[in-house]
């Protein structure tokens, strides 16, 4: 295989700028574009560890965090990312009250658009809602999680965490375990990991797997001991409380027994396999507390740190070369 071909099939050359207006999902991104974002994020990891964490890249820019669903972690992470880059960040939690007043998603989008934000970070409980909103606004839109569809910044921060630990993504064997059916994190990661040359396994009971899961390019397992064998990375997913009591799995104790990550099940993975979780964790449901807190294996807290850096990189990438339109006149 020629060197050029190798370069394309693996990480690929990183472009000089990010060519998309929005970040709605991992689907449609190239290996080069992902690498570009990860490289940029790497530089922000360093900035975030300095005493002075602030830069001025987003000075004068307005970022609105528009959250139609409760979130503390993702919203805080985006807020911090925007502020560290010197932008003005506003948080809007659209609770059900506005919906009760009859305001539709599109009304909300139009209203906010009239305020000339530069970036909208949107989380919404319905798949596709963020893409719909992006069609109605002039600014960049970042998908902060839409229904069971995508959560691209989570996949990027997972990739960054892995890359910093392992030096690469190419060739790794990644297991994604748990509630794949409802997980936007899983959908984004399945795509990102494969674009970057990793192999993906999905491990879950059939009731927590979507139809045709194998058509996503991943190998499907219903047995943790088989699925985890030889894995480099073990990604656990959160199981929502309301799905634990008979609707999708019969009970917490049964779920933990067969699908919860403990040392015994982990023993079949590679000895240095990394343990990841997008948070917030249900200790004793999908993950054993000891495993979660194992400083040699668990990178769960590192994921949170990488989250801020990745979101800074995305904000930076989407606003570069797009400033003139919204810049104050005469400046």
């Amino acid at each position, binding site marked *: 295989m020629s060197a050029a071909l190798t370069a394309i099939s693996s990480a690929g050359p990183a472009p000089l700028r990010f060519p998309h207006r929005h970040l709605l999902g991992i689907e449609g991104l190239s290996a080069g574009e992902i690498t570009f974002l990860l490289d940029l994020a790497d530089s922000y990891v360093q900035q975030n560890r300095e005493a002075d964490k602030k830069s001025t890249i987003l000075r004068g820019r307005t970022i609105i965090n528009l959250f139609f669903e409760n979130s503390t972690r993702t919203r805080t992470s985006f807020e911090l990312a925007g502020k560290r880059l010197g932008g003005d960040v506003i948080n809007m939690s659209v609770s059900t009250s506005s919906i009760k007043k009859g305001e539709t998603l599109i009304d909300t989008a139009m209203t906010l658009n009239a305020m000339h934000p530069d970036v909208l970070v949107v989380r919404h409980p319905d798949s596709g809602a963020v893409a719909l909103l992006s069609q109605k606004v002039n600014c960049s839109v970042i998908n902060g999680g839409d229904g069971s569809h995508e959560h691209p910044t989570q996949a990027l921060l997972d990739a960054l965490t892995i890359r910093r630990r392992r030096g690469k993504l190419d060739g790794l064997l990644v297991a994604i375990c748990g509630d794949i059916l409802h997980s936007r994190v899983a959908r984004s990661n399945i795509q990102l990991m494969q674009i970057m040359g990793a192999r993906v396994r999905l491990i879950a009971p059939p009731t927590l797997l*979507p139809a045709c899961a194998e058509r996503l390019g991943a190998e499907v397992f219903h047995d943790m001991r088989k699925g985890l064998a030889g894995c480099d990375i073990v990604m656990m997913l959160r199981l929502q409380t309301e799905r634990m009591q008979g609707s999708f799995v019969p009970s917490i104790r049964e779920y933990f027994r067969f699908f919860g990550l403990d040392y015994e099940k982990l023993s079949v993975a590679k000895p240095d396999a990394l343990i990841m979780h997008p948070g917030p964790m249900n200790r004793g449901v999908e993950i054993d507390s000891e495993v979660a807190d194992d400083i040699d294996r668990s990178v769960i807290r590192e994921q949170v740190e990488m989250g801020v850096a990745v979101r800074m990189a995305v904000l930076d990438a989407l606003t570069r070369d797009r400033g003139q339109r919204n810049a104050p006149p005469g400046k």
Partner: protein
Amino acid sequence: MATRLDAGGANGHARVAYVNARLIDPASGLDAAGGVLTEGETIADLGPGLFRSGVPPGVERVDCKGMCLAPGIVDMRVQLREPGEEHKETIATGGAAAVAGGVTSMVCLPNTEPVIDDVAVVEFIARRAREVKRAKVYAYAAATRGLKGRDITEMGLLTEAGAVGFTDGVRAIADAGVMRRALSYATTFGALIVQHPEEPALAGGAMNEGEVATRLGLGGIPPAAEAIIVGRDLRLVELTGGRYHVAHVSTAETVELVRRAKARGLAVTCDTAPPYFALNEIAVGDYRSFAKLSPPLRGEEDRQAVVAGLVDGTIDAIASDHAPQDQDSKRLPFVQAEFGGIGLETLLALSLELYHNRKLGLIDVMRRLTDAPARILGLKAGRLMKGAAADLVLFDPDRPWVVEERAIRSKSKNTPFERRPVQGMALRTVIDGRTVFQA
């Protein structure tokens, strides 16, 4: 048995000669050059040799220029939204859409507000249709009171009032016991039970279950949700001897179940709608809510099976399944958007795709749009016959056009076929001898 709900407009005994036509009458197998003479509201004469010696004096002459003259389309499944949701469609706007699509008779579902589960509502629809004077409007009455799936309606009285069949509209009659009772009781009046075949417990999703739904993170409705109800109902038909019709068949398995039931001689019929033979789940694309239909658009194998069912006659009829939804119901995240697409104005052209794609002969396409649904419903319609109502459509089977929102007459614009190039257009629509539409 069915009573037409609107009396139509009397126009005395005016006589019109349709000359130079290609006559297509699926009921008699006629496909030949010829003419039709209408007198007042009825067909006075027709045939290849008619007007050979010229049009008699005092008769209006319409030159068909070699275009197809067929019985007007009988659309056995539409939602007109009146009464109750007149912001989406009315009998007037739906009627205008119908005649522009060559539809001369249509049957509306009972899912209005109030529900058509009472003689008074059937009579209201009839009166409105008389006032509007567009396509003839017939009504299905609810199979269960309030469409609640529990207590059967006054099927005898409703049949007398003009209801042509009983259905719970866009809801399945889900309870097996209720379905059994409905089928059984309906035999007293020879009434037809029309099922929306979808097991509700499996139909919580927003689109067809499969790879596309998985990628989009949308809940799926498995094809089995349809087959489960049809399979169950066929057993109940055997048990009760009821007359049963499956609406909008969308899966390979349903086609096969109906095929086998017909082979066993059961009194079973079914229809499908253009989306199920002209589109598949790919049309959902990037969350296009106009492609959110009930039943959902299926996979390509199912679509091909529906075409095969139309070809071998397992699927008797094609209906528009016209389901108008306004902007507010569709400009929403896919999960929240309402189900349904309009179809009255595209029914003819999309059905003719089967002819242009060499799946069905022209006369066979027209049979599924005219004579077949009329027979299922017991309507005196869908035939070119001396003494029959002069309900006609003159159409060009080849004329190309593009489905465009701005040209839609329906009050709601939610077509899943936006920007699709099609062939075949109604040029003139005649109801009871009166021209109600001209392209």
